């Protein structure tokens, strides 16, 4: 080990301190929550004896855990009321399932309600997760969207502090939630990323990312690098007392000024991305030099001389439907891979392929760094333009995307943080009164859909065999859950959230309209009229519906399919305040 590595592991400590410390990483989820909250203040809600376990695991021969691997504990942090959500990394790699996800989002919403009622209640989320639990695929994915929304509901009222200690680290959509936090505390052992190294290697090959090279993995996603590039705030050694001290000061600092959250700083994101050219194969050390350790705009290079590269435009469903639905308006390319068309009452947005994309892992319509930024800017621009308007224009997310971008450069730059910026923008638009309608016309996979679609008030989908909504594409999901594609297909017949069939997805309670059309590839005038009318109705419903995502729990289909989420909501509400002593 080099001296600098020693310094990170030790912090201000000596080796003797390190040997005598109380390790935080070695604690289980309850131990971690207990170590952070004030002694004696811990009260576990929806605990193991409430037996709110996942209903989806037993039928797949996976042993459930009685609390679904997430500990919700109320208590105080140096006297400040707080709720902790600690993810147990040992159970299913900390994967977010229907129940564990609902526990986190509902706890955040209850904290927000208390904060609104005059008792600011901070939230502490202990992220140790590989991402969405693939056995609960679509319900896990939606749970992450609801968690992100709830973080943003609470954040202006009370601090939401993320802690990533390791050893699993934070990966998948939950890292978007981490990117929304008021403050992020990490250890040198922590990692934060969107796509895990193994998944990138699987998707992009070993040249893209060698997941067996641990030094590289930590250099790209490790806690020290994240703090050195201002993608996390506090680097603390693995010591329960030091982590608690760091949390105490983060909670005491309270909420940030509006506009100052990392996920709101599009100026910083834009300047940072302008300095990054994948063709130059930047290293993690280059990134520290280019970006610095403050989350502030950096000097950007002059645009290249000569005529801009000619971008070709493959015909895709996203492009076809965006053009058709927005009528006579000529779509504007915010960047070649993000199209926008604005009518007098709505803005249509779509991510499309750009074969010349300088971020080569995002050339097939994936949501990558610059796509996330462009979407966020466009949404924020509309919010600004309609600031004083009585009737806010709708935003129609036309969704046809293969996934998020799986790449080393993307992870190094913090794709999760870029996606957090988009998520934050969509949430801001929704809560400001802009009706957000997602229309899935093709594939809507994983982090791509989380970023562009899942923050909508209303979600419509075409009833078409090529429409696919899922947490991961089939081949990859099979490899990761150690199953064959045939086994996966077989399971999907009985486990609704696992299904790749949009008609099954429509049963989850998240679908506000499944629309049969004649030609999903090249919509007929009749198709366009039909989908257009459905969008008009959806806008109308959004205008009169809740501004949060509660309709996904109150819909008719949710009452049957998401009964476990509803049970979580009811139980947490009942247990939130201690029973009065007789």
């Amino acid at each position: 080990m080099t001296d600098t590595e020693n310094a990170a592991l030790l912090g201000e400590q000596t080796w003797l301190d390190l040997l005598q410390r109380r390790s935080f990483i070695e604690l289980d989820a309850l131990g971690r929550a207990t170590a952070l909250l004030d002694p004696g203040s811990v009260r576990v809600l929806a605990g193991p004896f409430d037996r709110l376990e996942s209903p989806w695991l037993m039928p797949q021969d996976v042993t459930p855990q009685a609390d679904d691997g997430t500990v919700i504990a109320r208590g105080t942090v140096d006297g400040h009321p707080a709720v902790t959500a600690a993810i147990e990394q040992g159970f299913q790699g900390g994967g977010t399932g229907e129940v564990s996800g609902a526990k986190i989002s509902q706890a955040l919403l209850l904290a927000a309600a208390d904060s609104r009622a005059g008792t600011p209640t901070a939230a502490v989320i202990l992220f140790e997760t590989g991402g969405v639990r693939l056995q609960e695929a679509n319900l896990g994915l939606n749970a992450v969207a609801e968690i992100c929304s709830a973080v943003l509901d609470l954040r202006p009222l009370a601090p939401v502090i993320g802690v990533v200690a390791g050893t699993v680290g934070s990966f998948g959509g939950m890292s978007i939630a981490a990117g929304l936090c008021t403050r992020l505390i990490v250890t040198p052992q922590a990692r934060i990323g969107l796509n895990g190294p193994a998944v990138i290697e699987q998707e992009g090959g070993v040249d893209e990312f060698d997941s067996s090279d641990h030094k590289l993995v930590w250099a790209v996603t490790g806690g020290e690098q994240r703090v050195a590039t201002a993608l996390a705030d506090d680097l603390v050694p693995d010591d329960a007392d030091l982590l608690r001290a760091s949390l105490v000061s983060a909670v005491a600092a309270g909420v940030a000024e509006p506009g100052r959250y990392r996920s709101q700083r599009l100026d910083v994101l834009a300047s940072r991305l302008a300095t990054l050219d994948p063709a130059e194969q930047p290293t993690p050390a280059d990134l520290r030099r280019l970006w610095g350790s403050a989350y502030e705009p950096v000097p950007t290079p002059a645009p290249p001389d000569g005529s801009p590269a000619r971008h070709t435009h493959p015909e895709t469903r996203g492009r076809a439907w965006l053009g058709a639905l927005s009528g006579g308006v000529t779509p504007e390319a915010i960047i070649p891979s993000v199209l926008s068309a604005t009518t007098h009452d709505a803005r249509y947005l779509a991510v499309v392929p750009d074969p010349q994309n300088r971020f080569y892992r995002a050339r097939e319509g994936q949501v990558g760094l610059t796509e996330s930024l462009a979407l966020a800017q466009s949404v924020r621009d509309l919010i600004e333009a309609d600031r004083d308007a009585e009737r806010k224009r709708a935003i129609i997310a036309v969704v046809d995307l293969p996934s998020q971008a799986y790449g080393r450069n993307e992870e190094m730059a913090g794709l999760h943080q870029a996606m957090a910026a988009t998520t934050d923008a969509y949430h801001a638009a929704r809560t400001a009164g802009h009706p957000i309608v997602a229309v899935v016309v093709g594939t809507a996979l994983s982090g791509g859909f989380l970023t562009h679609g899942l923050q909508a008030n209303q979600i419509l989908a075409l009833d078409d065999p090529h429409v696919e909504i899922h947490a991961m594409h089939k081949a990859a999901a099979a490899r990761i859950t150690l199953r064959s594609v045939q086994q996966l297909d077989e399971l999907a017949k009985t486990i609704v959230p696992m299904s790749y069939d949009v008609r099954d997805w429509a049963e989850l309670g998240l679908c506000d309209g499944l629309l049969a059309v004649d030609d999903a590839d090249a919509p007929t005038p009749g198709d366009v009229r039909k989908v257009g009318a459905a969008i008009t109705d959806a806008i109308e419903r959004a205008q009169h519906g809740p501004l949060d995502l509660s309709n996904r729990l109150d819909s008719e289909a949710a009452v049957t399919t998401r009964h476990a989420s509803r049970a979580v909501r009811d139980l947490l509400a009942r247990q939130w305040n201690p029973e009065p002593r007789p």
Partner: protein
Amino acid sequence: MQTLNYEFPATQVARRAVHIGVVASGDLEILLAPPESGEPPDRATVRVRTSVNGFDTIWHDVLERFFARATLAGRWELNDFGATPGVVNLRLRQAAESATTNGADS
């Protein structure tokens, strides 16, 4: 995935409900609840849910040996993710110890 049910005679009653362990690879969680009113105070009912099939006899032997010494009545739920008999025995003893000693819940 297999669910196994066992019952053993018991002479003692757990003082409190205890929860031990995690459903992590090679580990298990145990929930022990004292008998409720209406449930026999002299029986330990054990439900094992295990991700590994075909170890019924070994489960029976490990549990029989444990309950021969720690005769603790109540409802025992074991959620197992491939723990070895040694780990199972350790977790059972942890649960019994927490349920019978004075002091706070673990």
